[in-house]
């Protein structure tokens, strides 16, 4: 494949989205690193190129378009809005040096508060249509069902907040759930701290910015946590059952409706899922065969908080997703400085499509 082929592919894909009414946008390659670091944390340094600008400080070669497009929309976007873009993104590949560190992405993003499930279906159907000739396997998921389940747990707000904070880190999430349900014992050092009559006795001198008041507040929080009832095994089993749902959308909906009987907190989220399935059907997507995995997108798609999807090349299991996307309402809230708007979108990789065409 050549760069000109990929550029031509990208241009024709973007023209297709423009033809559907999307406005073309672009953004700078050098983005301030601070915004992305604050959103994703230090881990993004392993996936993005961070460099030093003598005046602006740390800057990052854009690892994707979504964050700058959201910032642009929140600053001066009209409502509703549909955007498309095309350009190179840059990813460090420490774990997979064989993967491209610079590649084209073409995106389509919808900012529209009238009917979020219809917008989900619109975005998915657009990508599904464009990708139809390539025989890819589509997978969908919904992070919103898991967050609804967590918010409905019969436990303290502090525990729920901690679980929510780690929704996108499945192992840590599991460790917390095991701790809160009493499956793993309290570490010895914490037990000693909780049992100590005066934990401050023989304390070292206070140094650093974290004050004795902050330390005291955490100890108080630990005491409250120790006094709280464990999360019941029934509730943990429901979460486990929920995370294991992996079938066609239609069957998944039945399973989730069953789980919602015992876990009514997810009812609204499951209703949204049902409305999305109907909206997909209305756009000609066969939800009887479309895959749904409840845990899809948890470890790799950190800003998505609702519907998620990916298109995978079954002939190339070593590849990353050819296309991926989802709903990121919370991201607009974080970047919107007090404002928010439901938003959903996705990207695809013209370079991989050119490769697939060449292989056919």
């Amino acid at each position, binding site marked *: 494949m050549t760069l000109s082929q990929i550029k031509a592919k990208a241009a024709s894909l973007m023209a297709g989205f423009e033809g559907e009414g999307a406005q073309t946008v672009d953004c700078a390659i050098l983005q301030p690193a601070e915004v992305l670091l604050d959103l994703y944390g230090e881990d993004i340094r392993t996936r993005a190129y961070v460099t030093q600008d003598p005046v602006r400080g740390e800057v990052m070669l854009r690892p994707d378009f979504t964050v700058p497009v959201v910032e642009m929309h929140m600053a001066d976007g009209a409502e509703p809005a549909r955007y498309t873009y095309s350009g190179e993104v840059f990813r460090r590949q*420490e774990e997979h040096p064989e993967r491209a560190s610079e590649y084209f992405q073409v995106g389509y993003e919808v900012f529209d508060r009238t009917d979020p499930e219809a917008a989900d279906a619109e975005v998915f159907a657009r990508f599904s249509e464009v990708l139809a000739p390539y025989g890819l396997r589509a997978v969908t998921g919904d992070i919103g069902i898991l967050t609804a389940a967590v918010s409905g747990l019969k436990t303290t707000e502090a525990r729920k907040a*901690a679980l929510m*904070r780690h929704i996108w880190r499945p192992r840590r999430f599991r460790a917390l759930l095991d701790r809160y349900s009493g499956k793993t014992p309290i*570490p010895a050092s914490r037990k000693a701290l909780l049992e100590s009559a005066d934990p401050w006795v023989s304390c*070292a001198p206070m140094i*650093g910015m974290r004050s004795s008041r902050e330390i005291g*507040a*955490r100890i108080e929080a*630990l005491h409250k946590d120790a006094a709280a009832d464990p999360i019941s095994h029934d509730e943990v089993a429901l979460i486990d059952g929920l995370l294991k749902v992996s079938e066609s959308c239609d069957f998944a909906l039945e399973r989730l409706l069953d789980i919602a009987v015992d876990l009514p907190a997810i009812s609204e989220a499951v209703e949204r899922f049902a409305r999305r399935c109907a909206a997909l059907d209305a756009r000609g997507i066969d939800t009887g065969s479309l895959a749904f995995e409840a845990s899809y997108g948890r470890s790799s798609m950190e800003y998505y908080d609702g519907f998620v999807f990916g298109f995978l090349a079954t002939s190339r299991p070593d590849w990353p997703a050819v296309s991926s996307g989802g709903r990121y309402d919370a991201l607009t809230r974080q970047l919107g400085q007090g404002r928010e708007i439901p938003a959903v979108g996705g990207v695809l990789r013209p370079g991989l499509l050119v490769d697939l065409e060449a292989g056919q």
Partner: protein
Amino acid sequence: MTIKLGVPSKGRLMEKTFDWFGARGVGLARTGSEREYSGEVTGVEGVELVLLSAGEIPRELAAGRIHLGVTGTDLVQEKLVQWDQKVAPLAELGFGHADLIIAVPACWIDVDTLDDLDAAAAAFRAEHGFRMRIATKYHRLVRAYLHDGGVADYQLVDSQGATEGTVRNLTAEAVADITSTGETLRANHLKVLGEEPVLRSQATLFKSRVAKKTDAERKALNALCDVLKVG
């Protein structure tokens, strides 16, 4: 043509390396004036001594410019992406022991595990409006360790020396550094987390997996490994 053996160019690490090879019948010595970085090898044929900074030995091994090198596991794993594809450890030399650890102020009586550190980081960010700072020069190793431990809401700040002083100077809340006895940490009112260290390091003889060898060089390398009883 000769096999190139990279050895730290000064200090205890060099002396102990010379002792280790000497005890196995391979004489390593510096030649010329005290300030001249040249050396000689006795007891085996076809091996050349290259004196280098310990920090540069990983890079030279990975580039294939030296065939063998003595350096710390910490430096190899920090500096080389996918280190095990570029170098292979032949022998641990039994000195230069040091652990890469995370340390927090000893007055943080509520923090002993990574779970505690993560919870403290979340609360710290909410209180101070920025991510908790951990000072280190081992960015890659520490980031991977904290990722595996599920710690969020922290940032690494670069510190190339006197790292233990950063907390008192209010430029970091915690540190990640190499320690052998922990004395400097204690003197600076820091304590090590009660977890497995990020890495247990010691001086190690590594072989480059990428350095090209002629037949004669391969023979020399095998002969040296036989004498040393490694590989």
